[in-house]
């Protein structure tokens, strides 16, 4: 193994992620290689610089407010689902009654009835096609799977 092979191991060494066997091999290499020793020093220096960055810790009041925000979103989610289901049911029922009224009304011209029926079938075909496409994207999109995990 040469320095190029050892270079990726340096970071794992600094992070404490090397196996005992690899650590021993790397330490042996470091004892005779100035280049890798320098690179190790650079990595350690970078780690020390990054360790200077600390985030503010939320207080109990912050955490309470934060949880209240999450809770509100959870409740709102249920509200949206109920609103959507109710709206869809009412819209479907209204559309059915409207179409039924037009189709069964003897005063409405045949061409209008055919137009309405064609419109309904067209809308259903488009909806099913879009739904199938969305489901196919959802299956093949790695990102959406991760969200659902």
């Amino acid at each position, binding site marked *: 193994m040469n320095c190029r092979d050892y*270079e*990726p191991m340096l*970071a*794992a060494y600094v*992070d404490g*992620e090397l196996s005992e066997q690899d650590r021993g091999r790397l330490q042996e290499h470091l004892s005779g290689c100035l280049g890798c020793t320098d690179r190790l020093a*650079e*990595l350690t220096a*970078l*780690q020390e*610089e*990054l*360790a*200077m*960055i*600390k*985030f*503010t*810790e*939320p207080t109990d009041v912050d*955490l*309470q407010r*934060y*949880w209240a*925000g*999450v*809770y509100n*979103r*959870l409740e709102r*989610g249920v509200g949206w689902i109920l609103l959507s289901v109710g709206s869809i049911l009412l819209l479907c029922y209204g559309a059915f009654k409207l179409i039924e009224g037009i189709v069964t009304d003897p005063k409405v011209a045949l061409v209008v009835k055919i137009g309405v029926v064609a419109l309904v079938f067209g809308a259903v075909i488009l909806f099913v096609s879009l739904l199938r496409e969305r489901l196919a994207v959802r299956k093949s*999109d*790695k*990102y959406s799977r*991760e*969200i*659902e*995990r």
Partner: protein
Amino acid sequence: MDDAERTLIGQCRAGDKAAFGQLVRAHAGRAIGLAYGLLGNRSDALDASQDAFVRAWRAMGRFDGRSAFYTWYAAILRNVCVSQLRKRLRRGPDEPIESLPLPSGEPDPSLLAERSERIDRIWRAVMSLPTAHREVIVMKHFQEMSYRQMAESLSVPVGTVTSRLHAARRALRELLAGERV
């Protein structure tokens, strides 16, 4: 995952929102930190991390418990953040995350516990890394996640985490060296 967390997860699965509240409060600080490192500003970090908790609650039935809750949650949060970045930059879902920069030029330092010229310089350098590099730096150095936890959260092999971290640190060193000149 410890026994207390396992108990809380079981209660959450049974629909106990109070138990979920305990989980949220226990992990909120880290969650905000991760989102802040990925999105670069406080309000977006709060929004994304809360959104991810809502998604986690809805997906709790699918959490298999093989990893710690936070590792699983971090995967959800990371994807919410990447999705926000794509939306803000109006990029499509096929856009590789390597090419997603922070949308605003100047990073917001409002959640940094300490400020100095040196700390600001390091923070700016981290924030100017591409997302794929920034996320491994944030997870490793600010979240203290192990390679295995990072691999689980990013859905990549441990070897990929090692090589990304290597590339990210090299890029960061170059950025910091460039600023010193």
